[in-house]
């Protein structure tokens, strides 16, 4: 790097950053702007200015409110369960994990959801399904409802493996000296996990929960495959609402719903990322 002055290096980095940023502006910022313009029109035929009427309308619509509530609840349940289960599995297996087992754990993410949804429909959801009585008898799944708990099971089955692999890799890469030192000071293994290992792998924990949130928000494909356009009340998601308006060509309402959803997504996401301190301290 000596023959390369810092200023020149920075200029190269700026150039490297440019293509991604142009793509981002072109395919995300511009559509957002288009949506914003569209959401203030009356409809596709009547182009007169409507102001905030559509926003007022969707926030008085009980189905939209229900959908937002369902989305946030699913996000909460799924992220909590997936992280806890993944962490539990990672703590148990991270010392003895082998390459082959690792591949096995990541495999579910690559399987097509359409094939899995058939299995899930027949194993959990249909009236004569083999496992439906167990879901109805077991108290937590009965409280959540058979539909929501089987959706959660499908998502957990797909994602827990990857979370386990991520966390066990992070646990394996910890510095041995720190752990030995803590052990010399008489820390029990539970204490070691709670006050040494978990704080050290915090960036990975934040990244994994960000991934969980991403999967929870993009669970619409599974919902659509399992339940179709009009799912039962406790599964109905914002994306279902938007899909139905998309099919009816209500772009104004669709845009208003999408922008409100964007605000909600950012409100959930930014605090989480700032916990992680992704920006490196220099």
């Amino acid at each position, binding site marked *: 790097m000596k023959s390369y002055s810092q200023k020149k290096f920075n200029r190269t*980095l700026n150039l490297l950053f440019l*293509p*991604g940023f142009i793509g981002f502006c*072109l395919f995300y910022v511009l559509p957002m702007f288009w949506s914003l313009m569209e959401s203030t029109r009356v409809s596709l035929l009547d182009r007169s200015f409507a102001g905030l009427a559509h926003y007022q309308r969707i926030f008085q619509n009980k189905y939209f409110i229900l959908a937002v509530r369902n989305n946030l609840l699913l996000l909460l349940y799924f992220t909590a369960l997936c992280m806890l289960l993944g962490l539990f599995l990672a703590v148990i297996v991270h010392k*003895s994990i082998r390459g082959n087992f690792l591949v*096995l754990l990541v495999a579910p993410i690559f*399987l097509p959801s359409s094939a*899995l949804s058939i299995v899930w429909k027949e*194993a959990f959801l249909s009236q004569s399904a083999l496992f439906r009585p167990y879901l109805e008898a077991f108290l937590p799944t009965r409280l959540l409802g058979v539909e929501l708990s089987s959706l959660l099971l499908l998502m957990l089955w797909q994602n827990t493996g990857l979370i386990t692999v991520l966390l066990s890799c992070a646990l394996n890469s910890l510095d041995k000296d720190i752990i030995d030192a803590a052990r010399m000071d008489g820390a029990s293994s539970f204490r070691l996990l709670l006050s040494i290992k978990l704080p050290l792998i915090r960036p990975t924990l934040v990244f994994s929960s960000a991934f969980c949130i991403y999967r929870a928000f993009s669970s619409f494909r599974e919902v659509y495959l399992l339940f179709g356009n009009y799912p039962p009340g406790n599964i109905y998601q914002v994306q279902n609402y938007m899909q139905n308006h998309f099919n009816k060509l209500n772009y104004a309402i669709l845009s208003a719903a999408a922008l409100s959803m964007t605000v909600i997504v950012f409100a959930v*996401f930014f605090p989480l990322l700032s916990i992680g301190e992704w920006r490196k301290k220099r």
Partner: protein
Amino acid sequence: MKKWITALCCALAAILLLFPLYILLINSLDVSHVLQMKYFLLSPSIDPLLSALFTDALYSTQFLNSFFLTIPVVAGHILFAVTSGFALARRSFKFSFVLTALYVAVLLLPSQVTILPNFILCKSIGILNTP
């Protein structure tokens, strides 16, 4: 003792992980044409798999389409992600945290939000229907 607990947990996780795959496999080997999910088979046959792979023209076309679509998508992802990732990691822009967070957050947006504007955009810059 601890080793046994680990082994037991691994075995349980493996069974849970493999069970849906087992059901898919069993039902792909079924030739009885009964519309019901089966959990075991008395007379498995490999014919359905063979016909899907070799005699079903539609399946192979669809598979090849997915395959060839994957290549430019992955190449584009690597090209753009590597360059901007390297720049974001090595240089602290004024708003680099906000930018990183934005890049991640737009992943969460549902596809209905961007699909129509993107279609209009592609149409207006004339790259629609060009392979």
